[in-house]
């Protein structure tokens, strides 16, 4: 082989080894994500175009909505695509990413994130587990603080030291993820007695409300473009936002409107002493009641949605799981 050809081959081979090595390091050293949202690897195991309804937002979604219960009550499939402190910008990129493999008829967007800061302190998780592509890049630059971006663009920066604590089999992790038995829901058993607190007010100057509005509008446009019905809602909480804050969101949403479930805490049947995990998150018991309420309110309209080809066995297991939640992955 001529020296020039040899050089070129060696260079290309080295670059390939370098890229492959970085990919391997990122994949092997990043901890698995199966709890508390951002479970993208499990989401990607979901049968293509099998989800009727999608729930998007922060922990207020993955703690409050149980797709297994919705399926048991309505027979329709749903999935919770969410992450801790998921900013509105991240929600936008989450929806875009989720729509690459699913085509839901309806998206429920939890809009508490309208009052989140511009950058999430959980961006490492919320964005770090997103599949590689333009949506991940978009989320990195829109919702991660500048000092966190390098670690998200180059994961070994954040995780390379994990080799010191990993057991041998973890170095040979294979791509054998299974679908999430909870379809994005996070099982929380513990109950803490709560009291209804005074409505929370937000100083708009301290957050990036304008940016959040911009991304909310982008979500509205995206749903319109894909003919997806969008429902913006506030999940039930012991510390709801004040009327003035809700009005600000309503102004943004116009005709789309805002569904505030805090108005229905009694109708939902939430018991403040047994149904909350903390001030803002429902536990399993509360989530079951809230999901039943959602099924009742929307179940009828969902019946008109076209039937999809979904994995019946998986969804039956998910419906069964709510009957014995401790027996599974919890």
């Amino acid at each position, binding site marked *: 082989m001529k*020296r020039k050809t*040899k*050089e070129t081959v*060696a*260079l290309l*081979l*080295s670059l390939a*080894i*370098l890229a492959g*090595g*970085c990919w391997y*390091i990122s994949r092997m050293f990043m901890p698995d994500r199966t709890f508390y949202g951002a479970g993208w690897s499990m989401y990607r195991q979901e049968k293509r175009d099998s989800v009727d309804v999608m729930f998007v937002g922060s922990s207020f979604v993955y703690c409050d909505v149980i797709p297994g219960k919705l399926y048991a009550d309505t027979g329709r499939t749903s999935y919770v695509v969410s992450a801790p402190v998921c900013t509105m910008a991240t929600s936008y990129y989450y929806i875009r990413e989720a729509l690459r493999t699913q085509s839901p008829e309806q998206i429920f967007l939890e809009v508490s994130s309208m009052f989140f800061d511009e950058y999430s302190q959980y961006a*490492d998780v919320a964005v770090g587990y997103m599949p590689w592509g333009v949506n991940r890049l978009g989320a990195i630059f829109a919702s991660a603080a500048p000092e*966190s971006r*390098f*670690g998200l663009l180059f994961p*070994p*920066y*954040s995780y*390379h*030291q994990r*080799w*010191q*604590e990993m057991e041998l089999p973890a170095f040979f992790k294979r791509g054998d993820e299974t679908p999430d038995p909870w379809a994005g829901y996070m099982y929380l058993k513990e109950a803490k007695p709560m009291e209804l607190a005074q409505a929370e007010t937000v100083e708009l100057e301290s957050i990036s409300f304008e940016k959040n509005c911009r991304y909310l509008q982008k979500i509205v446009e995206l749903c319109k473009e894909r003919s997806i019905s969008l429902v913006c809602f506030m999940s039930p909480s012991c510390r709801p936002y004040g009327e003035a804050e809700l009005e600000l969101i309503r102004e943004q949403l116009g005709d789309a409107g805002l569904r505030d479930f805090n108005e229905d805490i009694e109708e939902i049947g939430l018991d403040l002493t047994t149904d909350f995990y903390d001030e803002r998150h429902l536990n399993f018991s509360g989530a079951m009641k809230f999901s039943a309420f959602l099924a009742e309110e929307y179940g009828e309209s969902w019946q008109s949605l076209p039937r999809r080809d979904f994995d019946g066995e998986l969804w039956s297991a998910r419906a069964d799981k709510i009957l014995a939640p401790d027996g599974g992955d919890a």
Partner: protein
Amino acid sequence: MNFNSLEYMLFLPVTLALYYALPGRVRNPFLLAASYFFYMWWEPAYALLMLFSTAVTYGCALAMGSAREGGAHRRRAWLVLCLAVNLAILFFFKYYNFLASSVNSLLGRSSGGLPALDILLPVGISFYTFQALGYTVDVYRGELEPERSFIDYALFVSFFPQLVAGPIERAGNILPQLKKRHRLEIRNLPGSVLLILIGFCKKMVIADNLAVVVNGAFADPSAYTGAQLAFASLCFTFQIYCDFSAYTDIARGSARLFGVSVMENFRAPFFAESIRDFWRRWHISLSGWFRSYVYIPLGGSRVGKWRRIFNLMVVFLLSGLWHGAAWTFVLWGAVHGLYQAVGVLLDPVRERLYMAVPKNAPAVRAVRILFTFTLVCAAFVVFRAESIADAVYILKSAALAPFTGLFPLAFGAMGLTRRMLVVVALHVVLLLTYDGLRDKEAFLGRVSSTVWQKYALGLFLIFSILIFGSYGKEVPRQVFVYFQF
């Protein structure tokens, strides 16, 4: 700008690309601007100080050149002026607070004595001042013509690869290279890149990981056992070597990319067979500077035994003081001076001994290397300790370790996991093997000219850094130890 920063990873290739893209006559002004940019990244205002020092040495050297016919007095006056101004700057920024606190504590004054000033030590001031002073003395001695081009001279002082932590270069080596018009030699690239990667590997895999052990033990020695302190001292010896020689490797590799060959600063110092030999291998540029501009003018070795010992003590005390404004550094210099003094006194004994036992016998050499290394290790404890009292405590505890219990060593409790300790130890073995090569340059040249070997070595170094390197979100960035000097 730190070498071990993302900024430098961008700065170097961009500067390199622009340098070779520009026409020849604007390359040096560009490289000068880039070097100042590199320096100003840390503290812009102090670039003015470097510029002032540069202007003074440049002007004084020119004045000395033009006063050549005018007589020795005028030349000497210019030299004294140049030395006085530069040493005054160095003294003010580096030693004033040390002097003030020493005087105040000597007089027992906690207030009302010499005031302490809130000044930041300009990075690299000791390096560029010595480099500029060396040039001035060379011109004074007539060994060098004064440089006419201010741009070239300023670039010699501020050339970014070796600006902050050396090597302290000689104008006679660098200036002629800066005047040449360089062409980008693709075949030279791998050698330079490999040298830079070796530097990063030493710094990030060995030095910065060992820093975890060292920082903990030296911050609170009383919390550690004698064996642990002995281990921490050993770790520091390797840490400082890897840290400092890494800087030199990156500096040399970076300079080579611009066609400039910077001198070697370390030559397998841990294979030294005596302290004298150690100083021929450790921080060669500083040792050379002191030899040329202090030791030899004092009479060097061509004087009586006691005068030679005096000369050695002066050089090593100054060398200690050069490193930092603290008594620990002065003591470190004094310890090395004493080592050398004892060496001089024992010369006749050694001569007789080597008549009985061959000096070059492998076992004898091994013992000499081990003994020298132990002395160097012990001296570095003084260098690193927070105070002289700490240094004494560490040395005492470490020396008594065999009697107070070597086991359990509990190295795992010193901040590094067992796995990391094994990895670092393996890298140290590889480093010592590399150091043990008779001609490292030839080795790198050979590897660089073989396609598969150079890529294999490059990939090995990159993956070592990526996986085992001390970097990342939750890892505090360790600056190069010699940045503080």
